[in-house]
């Protein structure tokens, strides 16, 4: 049932990408997204493809896991393709009523599809190889400079990691309560909208009660262990850059440089 929903969808495996510092992965993903939207020309497209394929290879995550993410945006991709196909101004190749198919439209639609597909594949590598906790850890460290101007970076990161930690627990709890009420004959599926909303009450009330109970327990447990915010707090596993992180930074920067060079000198044919 609900158990099948994976959030953060971390795929445990042993690979260089898994071992990279989360900050490197965050930065690289950002660079990758920028490159996707500024590349021009076939040569650049080939570089992007090669880079993506290489990272997928190295990550040791089965390709079908990344494709799963594509299913979620299938509708979005379809709409984007249709709009681009028929609404791009240019020399019409073919007219059908109000619809005009242009060469530019076909090109734009194709490019947009490639960009969206690569976007999902590339970003899913980050979430598949990084646990949510590593990710928040990386974010906290990367955003630390902002705490100097009064942004509570530690508190935000703590809230994020608690929220992430509790999502699976709450999903499990929902599943349990749903089953318990189904065992008492509750019906969550049939009926019109009003009935469906009403049938949620036996689920939502216990869920809220338990969420508050858990929040109370957690606050108590944190206080019992003398938690008082981020000041002076040390880490059990502090993030430290290693050789492979430096190598990854260099790779990504060279990659971006290549894309930008192509954009300047090898624009053909787009």
């Amino acid at each position, binding site marked *: 049932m609900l158990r099948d929903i994976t959030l953060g969808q971390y795929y445990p495996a042993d690979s260089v990408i898994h071992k990279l510092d989360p900050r490197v992965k965050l930065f690289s993903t950002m660079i990758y997204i920028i490159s996707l939207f500024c590349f021009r020309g076939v040569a650049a497209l080939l570089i992007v493809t090669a880079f993506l394929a290489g990272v997928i290879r190295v990550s040791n995550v089965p390709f079908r896991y990344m494709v799963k993410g594509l299913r979620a945006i299938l509708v979005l991709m379809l709409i984007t393709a249709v709009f681009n196909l028929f609404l791009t101004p240019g020399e019409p190749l073919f007219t059908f009523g109000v619809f005009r198919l242009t060469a530019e439209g076909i090109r734009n639609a194709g490019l947009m599809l490639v960009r969206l597909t690569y976007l999902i594949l590339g970003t899913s590598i980050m979430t598949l190889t990084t646990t949510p906790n590593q990710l928040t850890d990386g974010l906290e460290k990367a955003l630390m400079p902002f705490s100097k101007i009064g942004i509570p970076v530690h508190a935000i990161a703590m809230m994020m990691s608690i929220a992430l930690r509790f999502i699976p627990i709450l999903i499990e709890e929902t599943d349990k309560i749903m089953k318990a009420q189904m065992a*008492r004959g509750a019906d969550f599926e049939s009926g019109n909208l009003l009935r469906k909303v009403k049938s949620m009450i*036996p689920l939502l009330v216990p869920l809220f009660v*338990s969420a508050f109970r858990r929040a109370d327990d957690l606050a108590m447990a944190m206080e019992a262990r003398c938690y008082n915010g981020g000041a002076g707090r040390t880490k059990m596993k502090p993030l430290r850059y290693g050789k492979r992180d430096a190598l990854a930074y260099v790779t990504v920067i060279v990659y971006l440089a290549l894309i930008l060079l192509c954009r300047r000198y090898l624009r053909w044919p787009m």
Partner: protein
Amino acid sequence: MTDKMLMILDKVNYVYSEDTAYQIQALKDVSFKIAEGQFIGIIGHTGSGKSTLIQHLNGLMKATTGSIYFHGQDIYDDDFDLRELRNRVGLVFQYPEHQLFETTIFDDVCFGPKNQGLKEEEAGLRAFEALRSVGLPEELYYQSPFDLSGGQKRRVAIAGVLAMKPEVLILDEPTAGLDPAGRDEILDLVARMHRERGITVILVSHSMEDIAKYVQRIIVMNHGEVMFDDTPSNVFAHYRELEAVGLAAPQVTYLMHELKSRGLSVNTEAITVEEARESLIGALTGIDSGRRDIR
């Protein structure tokens, strides 16, 4: 023969998160029969598949392979009504007090009977009957269930299932988190339901001690498989194997085996303190020399 059986499980397998990195086989070729009116205990340590198993019994989970028959009907048939099955096989989950949601105790207990399609009055009668049978003081009936103590909440939640008048009552660790008095209260209540109403009861637990004196048959689960399925004294005779999988026989079993190995001829099949006392008195009055031996 088969049509007299209330329930038959035939090679039931269940796999969690199939085809992913997190795949777990929770049930492996589980087969057994349940006769009407039996009082069965299902035992296993955490993660042995006992909770998964009982959710199959009322159709909340669907076996990956294998079949389950209820009164001779395959519950996975397309025309089988699973809601009807849930009405007849009452399942009380672990920590059932977490499912309470209504503004009054009485309304909460009415939830099940109303879902069965009963009218307001009849559902109310059922609720009264169920609340009385779990021994909740009448002045509490119209209070909020959230104001009760833990043990009382649990009794209300059990009443919520009892009010549906199931043929089979399944309880998943009904005594978890209760003090000894609360534990005895719940178990005595369940035993009384079995005695007075003749319903089939399945009690899930990880404590042999708890259920030894109540049940007629024990099914021991280990790593999703049925390890033993026999009368309590036969199961406890395997106390060494039970220990190996992280379970323990009742302390009485150990005592009796220890006494026997020291030369006192006691009945090692005794599982309750009462039986042990009988056997001890018999052994001690019979052979006087045995008394000196155990010193």
